[in-house]
Protein backbone atom coordinates (compact mmCIF):
# COMPACT_ATOMS: atom_id res chain seq x y z
CA UNK A 1 0.00 0.00 0.00
CA UNK A 2 2.96 2.26 0.47
CA UNK A 3 3.79 2.10 -3.28
CA UNK A 4 0.56 3.62 -4.60
CA UNK A 5 1.20 7.30 -4.03
CA UNK A 6 4.56 6.86 -5.80
CA UNK A 7 2.80 5.61 -8.93
CA UNK A 8 0.54 8.67 -9.04
CA UNK A 9 3.52 10.95 -9.00
CA UNK A 10 5.00 9.42 -12.18
CA UNK A 11 4.47 11.67 -15.20
CA UNK A 12 1.95 10.27 -17.66
CA UNK A 13 3.50 9.63 -21.11
CA UNK A 14 1.62 10.01 -24.39
CA UNK A 15 1.99 7.03 -26.67
CA UNK A 16 3.59 8.51 -29.76
CA UNK A 17 3.74 5.36 -31.89
CA UNK A 18 0.40 5.69 -33.77
CA UNK A 19 1.07 9.33 -34.60
CA UNK A 20 4.55 8.43 -35.78
CA UNK A 21 3.06 5.76 -38.03
CA UNK A 22 0.71 8.26 -39.64
CA UNK A 23 3.45 10.84 -40.07
CA UNK A 24 5.68 8.26 -41.75
CA UNK A 25 2.92 7.20 -44.11
CA UNK A 26 2.24 10.83 -45.05
CA UNK A 27 5.95 11.41 -45.55
CA UNK A 28 6.25 8.42 -47.85
CA UNK A 29 3.14 9.51 -49.76
CA UNK A 30 4.52 12.99 -50.40
CA UNK A 31 7.96 11.66 -51.37
CA UNK A 32 6.44 9.25 -53.87
CA UNK A 33 4.05 11.78 -55.41
CA UNK A 34 6.58 14.60 -55.51
CA UNK A 35 6.84 15.75 -59.13
CA UNK A 36 9.44 18.38 -59.53
CA UNK A 37 8.09 20.37 -62.44
CA UNK A 38 10.65 21.81 -64.81
CA UNK A 39 9.20 25.26 -65.17
CA UNK A 40 10.00 27.16 -68.33
CA UNK A 41 10.99 30.35 -66.54
CA UNK A 42 9.03 32.89 -68.58
CA UNK A 43 5.44 34.00 -68.60
CA UNK A 44 3.62 33.74 -71.88
CA UNK A 45 0.28 35.00 -73.11
CA UNK A 46 -1.50 31.73 -73.77
CA UNK A 47 -4.24 31.52 -76.38
CA UNK A 48 -7.87 31.16 -75.33
CA UNK A 49 -9.80 27.99 -76.01
CA UNK A 50 -13.20 26.65 -75.12
CA UNK A 51 -12.60 22.93 -75.45
CA UNK A 52 -9.40 22.48 -73.44
CA UNK A 53 -8.86 19.36 -71.34
CA UNK A 54 -7.20 19.20 -67.97
CA UNK A 55 -3.65 17.93 -68.17
CA UNK A 56 -2.35 16.26 -65.02
CA UNK A 57 1.14 15.22 -64.01
CA UNK A 58 3.02 17.75 -66.07
CA UNK A 59 6.75 17.35 -65.67
CA UNK A 60 8.28 19.54 -68.36
CA UNK A 61 7.03 22.88 -69.61
CA UNK A 62 8.39 24.26 -72.86
CA UNK A 63 7.59 27.92 -73.42
CA UNK A 64 7.68 29.82 -76.68
CA UNK A 65 7.73 33.58 -76.18
CA UNK A 66 6.15 36.17 -78.47
CA UNK A 67 9.51 36.84 -80.12
CA UNK A 68 10.05 33.14 -80.77
CA UNK A 69 12.51 32.27 -78.06
CA UNK A 70 12.24 28.76 -76.70
CA UNK A 71 12.64 28.30 -72.95
CA UNK A 72 13.04 25.04 -71.09
CA UNK A 73 13.96 24.64 -67.43
CA UNK A 74 14.68 28.37 -66.96
CA UNK A 75 17.11 28.50 -69.90
CA UNK A 76 16.71 29.86 -73.36
CA UNK A 77 17.52 27.08 -75.80
CA UNK A 78 17.92 26.61 -79.51
CA UNK A 79 15.16 24.73 -81.36
CA UNK A 80 17.68 22.15 -82.54
CA UNK A 81 18.74 21.39 -78.95
CA UNK A 82 15.24 20.51 -77.74
CA UNK A 83 15.55 16.79 -78.47
CA UNK A 84 18.63 16.12 -76.27
CA UNK A 85 17.41 18.42 -73.49
CA UNK A 86 13.99 16.79 -73.31
CA UNK A 87 15.58 13.33 -73.40
CA UNK A 88 17.72 14.26 -70.40
CA UNK A 89 14.88 15.80 -68.38
CA UNK A 90 12.58 12.95 -69.28
CA UNK A 91 14.87 10.43 -67.58
CA UNK A 92 14.13 11.99 -64.20
CA UNK A 93 10.41 11.50 -64.58
CA UNK A 94 9.56 9.15 -67.44
CA UNK A 95 5.80 9.23 -66.89
CA UNK A 96 5.39 13.00 -66.75
CA UNK A 97 3.70 14.85 -69.56
CA UNK A 98 5.09 17.71 -71.59
CA UNK A 99 3.21 20.95 -72.10
CA UNK A 100 4.09 23.53 -74.73
CA UNK A 101 3.16 27.02 -73.57
CA UNK A 102 3.15 28.99 -76.78
CA UNK A 103 2.46 32.69 -76.91
CA UNK A 104 -0.48 33.81 -79.03
CA UNK A 105 1.85 35.90 -81.14
CA UNK A 106 4.57 33.29 -81.63
CA UNK A 107 5.15 31.69 -84.99
CA UNK A 108 3.20 28.49 -85.35
CA UNK A 109 5.90 26.97 -87.58
CA UNK A 110 8.17 26.91 -84.53
CA UNK A 111 5.49 25.33 -82.35
CA UNK A 112 4.79 22.65 -84.95
CA UNK A 113 8.56 22.03 -85.16
CA UNK A 114 8.69 21.42 -81.40
CA UNK A 115 5.64 19.15 -81.58
CA UNK A 116 7.26 17.15 -84.39
CA UNK A 117 10.49 16.78 -82.41
CA UNK A 118 8.62 15.54 -79.33
CA UNK A 119 6.59 13.13 -81.43
CA UNK A 120 9.79 11.83 -83.03
CA UNK A 121 11.08 11.13 -79.53
CA UNK A 122 8.03 9.01 -78.91
CA UNK A 123 6.89 11.12 -75.97
CA UNK A 124 3.33 10.25 -75.00
CA UNK A 125 1.17 13.08 -73.76
CA UNK A 126 2.24 16.29 -75.41
CA UNK A 127 -0.19 19.16 -75.05
CA UNK A 128 -0.47 22.78 -76.12
CA UNK A 129 -1.35 24.98 -73.19
CA UNK A 130 -4.43 27.18 -73.43
CA UNK A 131 -6.53 29.38 -71.18
CA UNK A 132 -10.15 28.62 -70.51
CA UNK A 133 -12.39 31.09 -72.29
CA UNK A 134 -15.04 32.33 -69.90
Amino acid sequence: MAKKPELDEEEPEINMTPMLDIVFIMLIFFIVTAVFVKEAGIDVDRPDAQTADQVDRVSIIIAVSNNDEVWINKNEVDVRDITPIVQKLKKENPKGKIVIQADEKSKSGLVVDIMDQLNALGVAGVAISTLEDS
Partner: protein
Amino acid sequence: MTPMLDIVFILLIFFIVTATFIREQGFDVTKPDDTDEPQNLERRAAVLVQLDKNSNIIIERRKIDVRSVRAAIEAKIAEDPQTVVVVQVHEDAETGVMTNVMDQARMARAPVSVTKLDAAAAQAAGIR
Protein backbone atom coordinates in the same frame (compact mmCIF):
# COMPACT_ATOMS: atom_id res chain seq x y z
CA MET B 1 13.13 9.59 -30.26
CA THR B 2 12.43 13.35 -30.22
CA PRO B 3 15.28 14.36 -32.61
CA MET B 4 14.17 11.77 -35.17
CA LEU B 5 10.62 13.03 -34.88
CA ASP B 6 11.84 16.57 -35.53
CA ILE B 7 13.63 15.48 -38.69
CA VAL B 8 10.65 13.49 -39.91
CA PHE B 9 8.35 16.46 -39.40
CA ILE B 10 10.68 18.80 -41.23
CA LEU B 11 10.89 16.34 -44.14
CA LEU B 12 7.11 16.05 -44.14
CA ILE B 13 6.63 19.79 -44.25
CA PHE B 14 9.23 20.11 -47.03
CA PHE B 15 7.48 17.59 -49.24
CA ILE B 16 4.04 19.06 -48.55
CA VAL B 17 5.26 22.52 -49.48
CA THR B 18 7.06 21.42 -52.65
CA ALA B 19 4.22 19.19 -53.80
CA THR B 20 2.92 21.11 -56.79
CA PHE B 21 -0.02 19.43 -58.31
CA ILE B 22 0.13 21.45 -61.50
CA ARG B 23 -3.08 21.35 -63.45
CA GLU B 24 -2.57 22.69 -66.92
CA GLN B 25 -5.23 23.14 -69.54
CA GLY B 26 -4.56 22.26 -73.11
CA PHE B 27 -4.99 20.26 -76.27
CA ASP B 28 -3.41 16.89 -76.63
CA VAL B 29 -1.33 16.95 -79.78
CA THR B 30 0.25 13.52 -79.60
CA LYS B 31 0.34 11.94 -82.99
CA PRO B 32 -0.42 8.26 -83.59
CA ASP B 33 2.63 6.01 -83.68
CA ASP B 34 4.52 5.74 -86.90
CA THR B 35 3.88 2.30 -88.29
CA ASP B 36 4.46 0.74 -91.66
CA GLU B 37 0.85 -0.31 -91.82
CA PRO B 38 -1.37 1.97 -93.83
CA GLN B 39 -2.98 4.50 -91.56
CA ASN B 40 -6.72 4.48 -91.19
CA LEU B 41 -6.67 8.24 -91.40
CA GLU B 42 -5.59 8.23 -95.01
CA ARG B 43 -8.71 6.51 -96.14
CA ARG B 44 -10.87 9.04 -94.35
CA ALA B 45 -11.95 12.30 -95.87
CA ALA B 46 -9.98 15.26 -94.58
CA VAL B 47 -10.85 18.91 -94.34
CA LEU B 48 -7.76 20.92 -95.08
CA VAL B 49 -7.59 24.13 -93.06
CA GLN B 50 -4.66 26.25 -94.11
CA LEU B 51 -3.14 29.28 -92.47
CA ASP B 52 -1.07 31.60 -94.63
CA LYS B 53 1.73 33.81 -93.40
CA ASN B 54 -0.68 36.58 -92.40
CA SER B 55 -2.72 34.10 -90.36
CA ASN B 56 -5.63 34.10 -92.78
CA ILE B 57 -7.69 30.95 -92.55
CA ILE B 58 -8.23 29.25 -95.87
CA ILE B 59 -10.55 26.33 -96.52
CA GLU B 60 -10.85 25.16 -100.10
CA ARG B 61 -9.16 28.28 -101.47
CA ARG B 62 -11.62 30.54 -99.70
CA LYS B 63 -10.60 32.90 -96.95
CA ILE B 64 -12.94 32.53 -93.99
CA ASP B 65 -13.40 33.95 -90.52
CA VAL B 66 -12.32 32.04 -87.38
CA ARG B 67 -15.92 31.89 -86.15
CA SER B 68 -17.08 30.19 -89.36
CA VAL B 69 -14.50 27.41 -89.16
CA ARG B 70 -16.70 25.28 -86.92
CA ALA B 71 -19.68 25.61 -89.28
CA ALA B 72 -17.52 24.72 -92.28
CA ILE B 73 -16.16 21.63 -90.52
CA GLU B 74 -19.60 20.59 -89.32
CA ALA B 75 -20.90 20.82 -92.88
CA LYS B 76 -18.13 18.44 -93.96
CA ILE B 77 -18.90 16.08 -91.09
CA ALA B 78 -22.56 16.02 -92.10
CA GLU B 79 -21.45 14.75 -95.51
CA ASP B 80 -19.06 12.17 -94.06
CA PRO B 81 -19.01 11.49 -90.29
CA GLN B 82 -15.50 10.03 -90.57
CA THR B 83 -14.02 13.37 -91.59
CA VAL B 84 -10.77 14.44 -89.96
CA VAL B 85 -9.34 17.94 -89.82
CA VAL B 86 -5.80 18.66 -90.96
CA VAL B 87 -4.48 22.10 -90.09
CA GLN B 88 -1.59 23.19 -92.27
CA VAL B 89 0.17 26.23 -90.91
CA HIS B 90 2.55 28.55 -92.64
CA GLU B 91 5.87 29.02 -90.83
CA ASP B 92 4.97 32.61 -89.85
CA ALA B 93 1.29 32.17 -88.93
CA GLU B 94 0.37 33.08 -85.35
CA THR B 95 0.02 30.30 -82.79
CA GLY B 96 -3.09 31.98 -81.38
CA VAL B 97 -4.92 31.53 -84.68
CA MET B 98 -3.71 27.95 -84.94
CA THR B 99 -5.10 27.07 -81.51
CA ASN B 100 -8.34 28.89 -82.32
CA VAL B 101 -8.77 26.73 -85.42
CA MET B 102 -7.99 23.61 -83.36
CA ASP B 103 -10.52 24.74 -80.79
CA GLN B 104 -13.17 25.18 -83.48
CA ALA B 105 -12.44 21.74 -84.90
CA ARG B 106 -12.67 20.20 -81.44
CA MET B 107 -16.02 21.93 -80.92
CA ALA B 108 -17.17 20.24 -84.12
CA ARG B 109 -15.91 16.97 -82.56
CA ALA B 110 -13.49 16.20 -85.36
CA PRO B 111 -10.03 14.70 -84.81
CA VAL B 112 -7.39 17.36 -85.50
CA SER B 113 -3.80 17.11 -86.58
CA VAL B 114 -1.37 19.89 -87.33
CA THR B 115 1.37 19.95 -89.93
CA LYS B 116 3.50 22.57 -91.56
CA LEU B 117 2.45 24.02 -94.86
CA ASP B 118 5.15 23.01 -97.30
CA ALA B 119 5.96 24.94 -100.45
CA ALA B 120 4.21 22.49 -102.78
CA ALA B 121 0.96 22.49 -100.80
CA ALA B 122 1.07 26.28 -100.54
CA GLN B 123 1.40 26.63 -104.28
CA ALA B 124 -1.38 24.12 -104.92
CA ALA B 125 -3.69 26.10 -102.68
CA GLY B 126 -2.65 29.39 -104.21
CA ILE B 127 -1.09 30.71 -101.00
CA ARG B 128 1.92 32.91 -101.22
